[in-house]
């Protein structure tokens, strides 16, 4: 449980990070809250030669509303997400999901950017970001670009981040009026990864679903955006048949591994139960419940 030796860097600005990353290439890893990377380093499953600590970098922390959209700095901690009443008002699924991540000690240091960018299919934030259709702001030596959360995840710990790039912020478009959101997570205990979890946003107008997004945590090699499940809800009254169709479509794209949280069959079933629960909860909230 002792990491291999590494060089530690503590830059003060985004530009410094960019130039360090450019200089160090694949040998450099950015360190956010450290609650995924450092355990991996202690097990020597990760042995970065250089750690670039983002703690001292200016401008990476905070929650702001910009022209209706929500901008969250990558180094904003889960605790800060939970604490923000304004955020809970605008986009309540973030607080709901953050409260289900790990435990208070971890949430005090763990960041939303780290959780989003790490690429671990067990992380909770990615599915939530897919459900709210967030965009990730990436910085590298070629400047800034944005990638949709739904396009970001490519494999276990493989993301759209290029060598030399890092995540600086997350932008969430203004949620449409009448949208309900829910994140439902089945887990064995506090601090555990999900057996299965589902994030749902849906908006109803005049009894008809005008927008829906369903995304799944820890039931595949990446977080999963369930496009067919989302489509199955749009244009319906979100009645029993529509929910059933959405659940089936969501379960159909799951491909979980068997582990101590259960065999494949159970985890797929659990994904269905969580999806149903999240849709029903989001619907009730959309209707003002």
């Amino acid at each position, binding site marked *: 449980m002792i990491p291999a030796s590494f060089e530690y860097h503590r830059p003060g600005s985004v530009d410094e990070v960019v130039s360090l990353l450019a200089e160090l290439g694949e040998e450099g890893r950015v360190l956010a809250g450290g609650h995924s990377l450092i355990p991996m380093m202690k097990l020597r499953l990760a042995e970065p030669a250089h750690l670039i600590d983002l703690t001292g970098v200016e401008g990476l922390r905070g929650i702001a509303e910009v022209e209706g959209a929500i901008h969250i700095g990558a180094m904003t901690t889960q605790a800060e997400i939970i604490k923000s009443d304004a955020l809970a008002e605008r986009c309540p699924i973030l607080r709901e999901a953050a409260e289900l991540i790990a435990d208070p000690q971890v949430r005090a240091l763990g960041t939303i950017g780290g959780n989003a960018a790490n690429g671990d299919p067990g992380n909770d934030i990615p599915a939530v970001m897919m459900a709210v259709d967030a965009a990730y702001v990436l910085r590298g030596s070629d400047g800034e670009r944005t990638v949709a959360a739904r396009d970001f995840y490519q494999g276990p710990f493989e993301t759209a981040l290029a060598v030399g790039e890092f995540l600086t912020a997350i932008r969430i478009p203004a949620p449409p009026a009448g949208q309900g959101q829910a994140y439902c997570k089945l887990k064995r205990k*506090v601090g555990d990864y999900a057996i299965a979890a589902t994030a749902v946003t849906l908006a109803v107008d005049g009894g008809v679903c005008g927008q829906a997004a369903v995304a799944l945590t820890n039931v595949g090699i990446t977080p999963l955006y369930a496009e067919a499940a989302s489509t199955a809800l749009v244009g319906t009254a979100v009645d029993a048949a529509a929910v059933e169709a959405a659940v089936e479509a969501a379960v159909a794209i799951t491909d979980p591994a068997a582990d101590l949280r259960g065999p494949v069959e159970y985890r797929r079933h659990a994904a269905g139960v969580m999806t149903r629960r999240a849709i029903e909860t989001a619907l009730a909230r959309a209707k003002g419940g």
Partner: protein
Amino acid sequence: MSETKTETAAEREAALGGIGCDKRRKEDARFIRGQGNYIDDIKLPNMVFGDFVRSPYAHARIKSIDAEKAKAVPGVIAVLTAADLKPLNLHWMPTLAGDTQAVLADEKVHFQNQEVAFVIAEDRYAAADGIQLVDVDYEELPVLIDPKKALEDGAPILREDVKDKDEVGQGPRRHPNHIFNWQSGDKDATDKAFAGAQVTVKEEIFYQRVHPAPIETCGCVASMDAVSGRLTLYGTFQAPHVVRTIVSLIAGLPESKIRVISPDVGGGFGNKVGAYPGYVCAIVGSIVLGRPVKWIESRIDNISTTAFARDYHMTGELAADKDGKITGLRANVLADHGAFNTHAQPMKWPAGFFNIVTGSYDVPTAHVTVDGVYTNKAPGGVSYRCSFRVTEAAYLIERMLDVLAQKIGVDKAEIRLRNFIKPEQFPYNSCLGWEYDSGDYPAALKQAMKAVGYEDLRKEQAEKRARGELMGIGIATFTEIVGAGPSRNCDILGIKMFESCEIRVHPTGSATARLGTKSTGQGHETTYAQIIATEIGIPSDLITVEEGDTDTAPYGLGTYGSRTTPVGAAAAARAGRKIREKAKKIAAHMLEVSENDLEWDVDRFTVKGVPDLSATMKDIAMAAYSNLPEGLEHGLEVVDYYDPPNMTYPFGAYICVVDVNRHTGEISVRSFYALDDCGTRINPMIIEGQVHGGLTEAFGIAMGQEIVYDDMGNVLGASFLDYFMPTAVETPHWETDHTVTPSPHHPLGAKGVGESPNVGGVPAFSNAVVDAFAHLGVTHMPMPHAAWRVWQTCHELGIDK
């Protein structure tokens, strides 16, 4: 001589803080301030660190070990392998079970994470870097994980070192992978009972492999003083004196040259009884280098290599009449001990006290067989928070009672009431040879049923079942057997399992007591002081209790199997009484009366009929050093070695109520009521804490803990990320209660309690879960009752949609 009587006897008694009061724990003042002194807090000048290269394979031949690159790492001092230990004959060591265990893998590895080489370095970082660079060439061998397959003809032979031996310390064996066969009871009479039975039931019941997982892992610091030739060994030992004896035997040093110190120990639960390769390697390292060597386990090391518990594949059978009165019991067990037989039990008992399996019930005849088997798993088979193999036995009988109740359609409380040993049958001789000292089982169960509103719960359950909802009520009316043990049948390495206490009363009226047991968090400094306070009339606040230093404490066998109260506390009480005997002689001299004219009065001797004429213990203490009758030696100190005449038999009645989510398989523990009878209660608050802890561990075991191996022998989930350790959020609320049935043979009537809640808790949870499905024809469900397993049952029954 006598002081002004300003206090009543009751006030003086209260001032003592003796037996029966909720005294706050003395040790907590340092624990909650972070001032505990645990093994990793020990730092000696010039100390170095050692850690292991561990095998990635479960079964493989070691073709070569190349440590040159590791030795070149700055800070790495030495790399030890079996080849280095061989000339010292330390590459293997004896186990407490009569087997031998590899210290560092000798030609072969037998389980994943087995110790292969020991890297010693200036600091932990260099040691870790060195470990990564030790190059070991393995040739993989076929892996045996299933103990049933291990006993098949033609199965790969695991222990080539003993393949030609007829026995490995515990009687004849029949297969190279077989360790022992142990039987208890009357086979013919039992066969006859089954042949003539009106009803029989049979169930395969597996008690999974779990780990005690104490919050502090194992570790040690070995320090050899080359000048004096003295070895000091600090370590996480539940039995420091036994460790000293083992080290003496293994290392060939006289015990007078070995000092073993157990500092504060952060939980043991059986994990810290045995001797581990880390201790031997640290000692050898210190002898060779002349510097102190520290070895500390990581969490993964702890769960995947040092003593596990259970892994019992049991088949239970009951014969009964049509009313459910049991007429016979059979139990057959395949016991998976892993790579080496390293259980830690009294040596004559390879399956511990598993033949307590008739439990709280009057079973006329029974027969038990247990076969120990080698597999490619970590070695062990210790008792995790229970007396030796009693959790397994209690789980089997408490489950089987429910199976029988369902078979004949009788309520699960009623089946117990029909079969209980009756209060008037005590002392009760069980058909498997135990003499139960005391108990009142029907009273305990009836009190429990009344407390939880049992009849109403059953009504509610029926209503819920009618609505398709799942609710379960689990009962466990267990009997523990603790306090190993009487010298006629309990020893370790030939040393009888007595316990000891030395008391020194100092001139100004305080005392120091030293004992052979060792607290790993149970609060011995408090409870022993309370016992001695009551016995010698000196306030418990003025009594300092010391344990864990073999240079100062009298020899004892240590703390495990709930033996501290049954054996250690008895020694403390008897030592106190010896102090009082001498004190009486001194008091008679001080008061110028005959001893026969004195009576004991809380904290003093008073002249009968003259209450104002008395000598307090405080005054007597000074007189012991200043004013003695002729012929009496100075001082006021004694030592007592207590050989218990019998075990003690704490018992309890637990009732657990659960709701089951049939869609997800999640179990919600709605309530848990635990009535414990541990005889005389020394500190009720500490007892309650012990019960809370034991129930929480039982909850973990029943609901999620399991050390799983894949077919390749890879240990899955040996960290708290995967191994289920409940937090305060998951842990149910505990409702505790008690009855008091003193032990007739214990000097205080006390029986021990720390392990009862684990013994009774697990079957109570399991019975509740199965009971939720009983109306659907389910008789047994495998532990642990993780949501996915419960869902599988729901799914098979078609009720998960």
